[in-house]
């Protein structure tokens, strides 16, 4: 049985919902919102008629009910209808003195919890929190190791067990509880620009891929809202597709028009499959494609490569949908070339590109620009190069076009790369580790970044596929 957390995005993060006979830990620093989150999960289950047993080890049960009220939950009515039971369980009840030895087990709390959950037929048990619970034990280690019995006995009843645990701010290593549980939901608060920002992640999840990235979330009266970085709300922005299905998906549906996409490749990686697939897709949408030719990207090579992959772009070439701007004309002599390079300044490149963009716009065609920046970065002076990239990017954004700029990140300085990154809207890194190619997104105007994913190559279009 899968129980929804009542928080749509959290369900997605934990592979659809909470599974019965599984144990989950909500870990978080003090004040991150562990109790509130567990209360919202409780409320979510109750609204779907799933009975819940809430065990509080810190505060009295009426305080929990009151706490829920401050978030607009009427827990009292669920207690009355017998769907909810809120219990305080602690080693040291009020007014009691303790002497402790280390020879004990936790069968007391196990028997009590089992009796309570059977009474209301609970499918969800919340234990808030184990940190406070263990703090009362003089022999904490014994208590912790005996807590395994608690987890086993409770999840055996075909219920979901969620416990909350306080984590230290600088906790690098997984604690004992993280090994025992089937899923870990981690929340933390960080101070950014004088604002407290809450973040949620799922570093461990049995049965499914854990999501390693963190999502921002807010808690207010309306509930817990998670802003999932994989699917940002960009419905208002006009979207374009890259032509690589999975990449569009990972970028949250596509790329907004007016985007400058910086594709960082190492010198040994062949980016042509990525480039050609994308170019082919844009051509099939009847867009105008401008290519800034250079030693890597030139007309005959591109046509050859398309032929090799059995894709015909002749009609597009004939219709003039593909235009090459040749900065380094290879048919001229050395002297002429020197003169030409003086003639064809970066400003000329920009003005020719802009003229072409206007021509395409008159024919009501959208424009996509492809270019390899590596040579420009090496030939031009630093300031000229950055000015060139900035001007190009500005015109792309201004005219709602798309630019794919490839760069060999090993061939340029870190400072230059950092500046290019600032200008770019989307940064995709395409690199090779031994015999595997990986693609990752480091920056995205939509907020949808992703970690390296393995890339597979095909003989025909699409020449590239992302796995996972």
């Amino acid at each position: 049985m899968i129980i929804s957390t009542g928080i749509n995005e959290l369900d997605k993060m934990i592979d659809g919902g909470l599974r019965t006979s599984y144990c989950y830990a909500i870990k978080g620093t003090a004040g991150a919102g562990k109790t509130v989150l567990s209360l919202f999960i409780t409320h979510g289950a109750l609204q779907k008629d799933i009975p819940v047993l809430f065990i509080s080890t810190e505060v009295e049960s009426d305080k929990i009910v009151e706490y829920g009220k401050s978030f607009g939950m009427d827990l009292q009515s669920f207690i009355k209808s017998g769907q909810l039971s809120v219990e305080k369980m602690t080693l040291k009840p009020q007014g009691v003195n303790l002497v402790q030895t280390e020879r004990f087990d936790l069968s007391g709390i196990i028997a009590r919890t089992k009796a309570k959950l059977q009474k209301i037929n609970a499918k969800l048990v919340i234990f808030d929190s184990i940190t406070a619970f263990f703090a009362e034990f003089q022999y904490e280690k014994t208590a912790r190791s005996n807590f395994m019995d608690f987890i086993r006995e409770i999840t055996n009843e075909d219920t979901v067990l969620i416990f909350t645990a306080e984590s230290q701010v600088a906790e690098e290593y997984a604690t004992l509880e993280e090994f025992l549980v089937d899923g870990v939901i981690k929340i933390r608060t960080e101070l950014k620009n004088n604002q407290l920002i809450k973040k949620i992640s799922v570093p461990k999840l049995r049965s499914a891929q854990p999501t390693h990235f963190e999502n921002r979330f807010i808690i207010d009266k309306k509930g817990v809202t998670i802003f999932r970085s994989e699917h940002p709300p960009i419905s208002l922005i006009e979207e374009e597709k890259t032509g690589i299905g999975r990449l569009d998906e990972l970028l949250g549906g596509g790329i907004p028009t007016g985007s400058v996409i910086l594709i960082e490749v190492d010198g040994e990686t062949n980016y042509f499959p990525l480039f050609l697939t994308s170019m082919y897709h844009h051509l099939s949408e009847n867009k105008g494609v401008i290519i800034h030719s250079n030693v890597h990207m030139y007309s005959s090579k591109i046509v050859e490569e398309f032929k090799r992959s059995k894709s015909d772009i002749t009609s597009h070439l004939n219709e003039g949908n593909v235009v090459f701007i040749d900065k380094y004309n290879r048919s001229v002599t050395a002297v002429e070339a020197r003169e030409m390079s003086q003639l064809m300044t970066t400003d000329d490149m920009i003005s020719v590109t802009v003229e072409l963009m206007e021509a395409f716009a008159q024919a009501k065609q959208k424009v996509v620009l492809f270019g390899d920046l590596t040579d420009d970065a090496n030939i031009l002076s630093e300031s000229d190069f950055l000015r060139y990239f900035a001007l190009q990017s500005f015109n792309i954004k201004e005219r709602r076009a798309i630019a794919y700029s490839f760069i060999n990140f090993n061939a340029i300085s870190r400072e230059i790369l950092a500046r290019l990154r600032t200008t770019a809207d989307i940064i995709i890194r395409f690199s090779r580790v031994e015999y595997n190619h990986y693609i990752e997104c480091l920056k995205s105007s939509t907020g949808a970044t992703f970690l390296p994913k393995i890339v597979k190559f095909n003989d025909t279009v699409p020449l590239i596929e992302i796995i996972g």
Partner: protein
Amino acid sequence: MELKVMFFTSPTCGWCPFVEGILKKIIDEVSHLTLEIIDISKEVDKAEEYEIVAIPTIILPNNQRIIGGADEAFIREQLNFFVFMGQS
């Protein structure tokens, strides 16, 4: 005045029979002390009433609790300290 010592035990508890034997022995020696043995697997309500978490738990008449198994000397010491000293 009759004083009652409560002893909470469970079938899964390995130290309980040993502690139970000691308690019975000590309490036999003292006239005004009685022992109530509660198996929480049969009497969950009692465990709930006294908010029992760990087993074994011994509740002494003055609400002092001993959590965990202990030897005779330890239990005698606790009884002496918390019950008999208070009486005299």
